[in-house]
């Protein structure tokens, strides 16, 4: 990958030659290695060094065209600019995307957080040890069919013809382990866990192994659960999965497209229990994969989304912010149609709860560890969901694994039915969140 200065130089020259006065480029470069193991042997090692850019050009009629390419040498950029220019004549004529007014604003966050990559042999050895530990954790654990240890160096940049130019570099290392049990006369069960940190040395390997072992073993003596309405406790991961699936609630572009459960008038409305507060916080200290600027170069920041149950903000690109007469929030993804997406949720208690609950003394409560198949079971535009899950029936504090079941409901009703937000947060890939208690959800078992 050429340096940003080099890229800017020959892009400028090519644009000038083509008569293009206004353009911008967003790009990234990835250098990553990942390993998988099987029964004490390396199964597959993958390495990749790749880059891509997306160019936008504005023609003299001020309509915009876009092209993305993996070919970032002068010839590739030249072709991308030509193709984008051709596409620009078919670009939108209303609400045309423009440079972010904050593309040149000062970045206050640290733009470089890198660490040296570990040798591949060390990755393999580490993963083999983790697999062995898991296999030894219980006689019923017969395999770790899905596993991976990967490290990634990622650099991103944004530049435009008005002089904006910014870049950042990050390193991170992650591991996932997914073990499977086999017992005579019983169906196989499985469970998984994930950890991420800046480098292999900082990765919580032991915690990952212990979590998988504990969960997998806890699913051995499974039972069917009777269908009905239950008090449900969502794990942080499960709740964030649902929140992510219904993120159109906060998404200004979705709202403008009428592809949301919210409308512009929803701001300030009570959409959840006052016990709940949610922020989107790309720069949260626990977010290893933090991004300091978005696809339009706008600096990222902490945005309150739900404050004591009240919908307090939407997330914006430069274009949606202009249409809502507000500021961009650093959530844009560059493209022919600029889309908007959240970075990293921070869920925490809102108003003080009048009553606190604990799984240690829970009676007939379903604890959902993770929900599955969100791509199939979530109707994001209808607000409804019907999802298989892994979890336990908790009675008198004792957990009994549930064989196979679904949880169904309406997400807006779920938000209103929250009866307790625990205090202790947990870190997940999607954000930081405590366990969330919800009343009266439909569970289908036997």
């Amino acid at each position: 990958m050429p340096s940003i200065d080099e890229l800017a130089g020959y892009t400028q020259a090519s644009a000038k030659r083509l008569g293009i006065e206004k353009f911008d480029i967003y790009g990234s470069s990835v250098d990553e290695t990942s390993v998988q193991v099987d029964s004490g042997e390396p199964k597959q090692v993958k390495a990749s060094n790749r880059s891509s850019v997306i160019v936008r050009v504005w023609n003299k009629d001020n309509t915009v065209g876009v092209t993305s390419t993996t070919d970032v040498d002068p010839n590739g950029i030249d072709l991308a600019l030509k193709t984008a220019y051709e596409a620009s004549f078919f670009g939108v004529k209303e609400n045309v995307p423009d440079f972010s007014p904050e593309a040149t604003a000062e970045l206050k966050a640290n733009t470089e957080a890198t660490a040296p990559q570990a040798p591949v042999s060390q990755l393999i050895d580490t993963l083999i040890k983790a697999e062995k530990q898991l296999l030894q954790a219980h006689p019923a654990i017969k395999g770790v069919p899905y596993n991976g240890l990967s490290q990634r160096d990622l650099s991103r940049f944004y530049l435009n013809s008005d002089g904006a130019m910014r870049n950042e570099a990050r390193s991170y290392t992650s591991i996932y382990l997914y073990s499977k049990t086999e017992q005579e006369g019983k169906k196989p069960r499985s469970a998984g866990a994930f950890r991420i940190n800046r480098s292999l040395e900082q990765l919580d390997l032991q915690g990952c192994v212990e979590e998988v072992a504990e969960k997998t073993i806890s699913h051995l003596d499974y039972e069917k659960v009777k269908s009905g309405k239950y008090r449900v406790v969502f794990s942080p991961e499960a709740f964030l999965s649902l929140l992510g699936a219904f993120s159109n609630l906060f998404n200004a572009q979705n709202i403008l497209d009428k592809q949301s459960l919210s409308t512009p008038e929803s701001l300030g409305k009570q959409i959840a229990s006052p016990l709940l507060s949610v922020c989107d916080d790309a720069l949260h200290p626990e977010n290893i994969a933090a991004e300091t600027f978005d696809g339009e170069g706008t600096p990222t920041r902490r945005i309150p989304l739900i404050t004591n149950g009240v919908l307090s903000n939407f997330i914006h690109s430069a274009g949606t912010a202009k249409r809502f007469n507000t500021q961009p929030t650093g959530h844009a993804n560059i493209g022919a149609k600029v889309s908007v997406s959240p970075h990293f949720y921070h869920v925490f208690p809102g108003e003080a709860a009048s009553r606190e609950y604990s799984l240690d003394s829970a009676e007939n409560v379903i604890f959902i560890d993770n929900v599955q198949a969100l791509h199939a079971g979530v109707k994001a535009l209808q607000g409804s969901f019907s999802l298989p899950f892994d979890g336990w029936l908790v009675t008198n504090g004792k957990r009994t694994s549930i064989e196979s079941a679904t949880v169904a409901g309406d997400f807006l009703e779920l938000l209103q039915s929250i009866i307790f937000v625990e205090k202790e947060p947990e870190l997940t890939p999607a954000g930081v969140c405590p366990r969330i208690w919800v009343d009266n959800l439909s569970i289908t078992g036997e």
Partner: protein
Amino acid sequence: MHPSTLLLTRELPNLQYSSTRDRFDETWEALLSTLLGLGRAAGADFVEFFLERVNYINCLAEDDAITSISPRLSTGAGVRVFRGKADCYVSTNDLSFTGLKAALEKGLSILGLQLPAPNSYVPEINLELLRDYATKKGKESWLAGCSSMREMGEILLDANAQLKQKATHVQSRRAVYFRDWQEVLVAASDGTFARDIRLTQSVGYNLLCADGANRSSISKRVGSTSEPDFLRSWNYQTDAEEVAESAGKMLYADYVESGNYPIIMANEFGGVIFHEACGHLLETTQIERKTTPFADKKGEKIAHESLTAWDEGLSPDAFGTIDMDDEGMPAQRTLLIENGILKNFISDRTGSMRTGHPRTGSGRRQNYTFAAASRMRNTYIAPGNYTNEDLFASIDKGIYCKKMGGGSVGPTGQFNFAVDEAYLIENGKITKPLKGATLIGDAQEIMNKISMCSQDLGLAAGFCGSVSGSVYVTVGQPHIKVDSITVGGR
């Protein structure tokens, strides 16, 4: 004694190759055979290069405006190196000799191998005469024959106008189209040398209707390979009527009452049940991971005797059709289950090497960043002897799943999928629309409960995500009856 024509490694820096940048053809032979020989000289048991060039575009019409036209140009290569049964896959955007050599060297070093000393001979890899499916089948003109940006926009706007006429309570209308043109070249140290061009296109509707608190969203997509005229020949009037009618019916539908029911699943996209509940479990990838209950069941009965199923890459224009897989092997027709008996697995090169099941031309990948894996192509349940009337008449109270959403299967064989459009069956008749249904079950159990297959086999385009990324597939079946399945709802 080596012949004097053999290349010495110290000569590598002086080599000049003239492979063309804009086409993957015979001009790449010398470069690739040198690199393959270099990999073998370093001690690799097998080396494979996969080169890819993509010219992709998508177009989106929202209500009465084109809101996005997005071209994407991509080139890249992946090199796979085997040492024993261990393999390594390295991908790069740099297709120069230097770039490909660097990728090879990285792969070798990961497996503990290194390039030979400067005075070592590089063994010749005699590649076969290029098997050029693109030229042989006249595919060179496909890209130019596809719709221009202007035509894409015009057709999608016409289509959206048609939907506006047909539907009521419309909140948003979308017509979506993409064209994925891909040129691939595969060269391997066993002599494989093959080239192909693939053209995959898809177009469809997303309709959202709302009336107060009642909402319904219905989508429909059609897809094709190898048909440059595809978009021009899209019958959007018919699809608009179908989507509008479905959305209208589901707008005021009651939520399904959860429980266990007999169900009838419609043909075409209903085939997702077999794709998820069985197809994935017949991939050698699953045998390798020990995540399929069918691993040692070849020749045994694993399904109801009424069930026969195929996976193939040959149906004309179907979404999962390929002339060769991403390892250069010609596609074929693979009988998976015959009258309930498991006959074959779906196998790629690695799967074959590690499990012993023969390759079936099923090594597929989303793009150059993924190593190929055993993946489905066109997978469907064969037609049976019953009529749809027979199926309905056999049910007192059950559910008709007319339109399926997506689904998935987990590592223990538990599967699930969503129903986008469902109806209650009472005494053999459809009585009212239902929404919010999710079907869940266990693969082994469900396969024995597919007890009746109708005669109306239909295929549908789909996308399948797995270890080697998202690939285009066909699902299909006739109308089928499942004796009992858990339906999650409210």
